[in-house]
């Protein structure tokens, strides 16, 4: 999936994509967007947009449930989402 550069900068659209069906993901993804997203490399920003397309239980299993994505490409991103400060 090729994501155009302009989509990476569309923070307000991404903010709405962080609205999910699970409270845990709402809190974690929005905090990640505010705290870390803009400092990510374009490669990781693309991965974040791709991650948002996954079903909620899958994102939950990676970011909260302690499982690792099969695709190595996502592991670095998921690690930094887990490390986001929301407490």
């Amino acid at each position, binding site marked *: 999936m090729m994501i155009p550069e302009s989509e990476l900068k569309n923070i307000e659209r991404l903010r709405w994509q962080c609205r999910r069906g699970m409270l845990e993901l*709402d809190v974690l993804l929005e905090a990640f967007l505010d705290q870390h997203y803009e400092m990510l490399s374009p490669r990781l920003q693309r991965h974040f947009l791709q991650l948002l397309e996954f079903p909620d239980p899958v994102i939950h299993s990676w970011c909260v449930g302690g499982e690792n994505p099969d695709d190595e490409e996502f592991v670095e991103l998921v690690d930094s989402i887990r490390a986001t400060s929301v407490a």
Partner: protein
Amino acid sequence: MALEKQRFDTLILGAGGAGLNAALQLANANLKVAVVSKVFPTRSHTVAAQGGVNAALANVLPDNWHWHMFDTVKGSDYLGDQDAIEYMCREAIPTVYELEHNGVPFSRLDNGKIYQRAFGGQSQNFGGDQAARTCAAADRTGHAILHTLYQQNIRAKTHFFDEYFAADLIQDQEGIILGALVLDIATGKPLLIEAKTTLLATGGCGQVFRTTSNAHINTGDGKAMILRAGLPLMDMEFFQFHPTGIAGKGMLITEGVRGEGGYLINKDGERFMEKYAPNAKDLASRDVVARSIVTEVREGRGCGPEADHVMLKVNHLDEAVIAKRLPGIRESSKIFAGVDPVKDPIPVFPTAHYVMGGIPTDRFGRVMPTSDDDGDHLPGLYAAGECACASVHGANRLGGNSLLDILVFGRLAGKNIIDYVKDNPSHRPLDEANVEWAMGRLGRWDTKGEGITVSDLRKEFRKTMEDHAGVFRVEDMMQEGVEKVRAIREKLADVRLTDHSSTFNTNRTEALELENMIDVGLSIATSALHRKESRGAHSRPDYPKRDDAKWMKHTLYWQEGDKLEYKGVRSQPLTVESFPPKERVY
């Protein structure tokens, strides 16, 4: 610029299990169906439901719908309507089979039949041995159902308006609903959707409380639209709280933690549940534990700098036990509470989980606009799921009955709408004045200048609801709460957006949600203040007993004048004998 309009046979607001199951019936019958959802449909809150769906399939243990009905009536603390409950328990069986045929990957037994697990509150033979009634798709039942229904709707050519926010219902002079004014979140442009029939399936409203397990989208939008259309909400005082949510955040910490030996302590390290429930202690019923926690905090024994929570201690348990028997709890606590439960206790507070009340409907999902026991429904308007009140949960909901409610009544509303549209094939003329009113409400947010921010008023409102209309409900503090929420409603006029852009303006969407939450919050606070008894999830230490002589009735709340009326519980089932009220003992 002229307002864009589109016409459909049916407009469905909300794309969770209720909305999508209704849409599928309609699209399969070749009706032109619009589904409006503020988030992508498979991100609706149904996705968070892990438990399962109750249906008396008798695949694991003997069962029948009549036993399921008994458990549901008892669980409702006798406030549920027994005709609707009978209907739901009978229809549960074909509803689950229909889902199976549509492709929901239910977990299976070795013999190929659908696996069923045992849940609390389920019995065989009217209160006898434990039953096994809950059908599940591993621990992702809500997701599996939502995903299947969405795919089936795409096949059936349901028209989806994804990321559109429903602002207000449009009605004519006779009060008939003609559709809704919605807002395209991506562009900020309004769109008028005209429809011969409208179904509200907008889900719950847990976000009205500071601490909730509900997703951010659960702001009671459909309930608030109903209030602004001059229609009532029913039994809004009945809100289910889970005793242990992560303090200040709301994420559930499962009862299993206390089942494995975890216990609650206050700021002095005292194991306080020994005072409130000397036998069951930390495993007392949910409402007892929740009320005990709030009592500790109110009496100054809370923990933390604000003394606003208690601690759940598990660090006396072996690390291997925590890893094996409580998977996920350690990660969740680390991320959301900033503590490793192997080393430190978890800060917890009761979290708002599920609202039993909602838009009053009959068992076909048709909205009932009056308190008249023999009153008729409002033609063409339907509601289903957590936004509605059929009323099958009464004063308390059983586990496994919420997915069932949304699926059964979504399906039945869909089937009823098909017949209605056959008999009423034309659109009614629009009432332009009403459209202007709705557009004016949207336009009000264009006003610029200094004012209160959305986030500040939301914070004040949600804290007020938690303190004055949450778990702990006594007369004087609830009276104070109603006055405070009314004052907050007045302050809405002084709220200004900090962002006036058009595209994906979350500030504006959250302002519209805040209006909805405040309208719904007042219905909860007002209804709770006036119910002077304890029943199900509504617990009043100043009126500790259930009072069937005075209060075996449904509350109806109207926004105009914060008016309350009451109507009788429908205790007569359809084909079987009524279950008379008894003391509810488990």
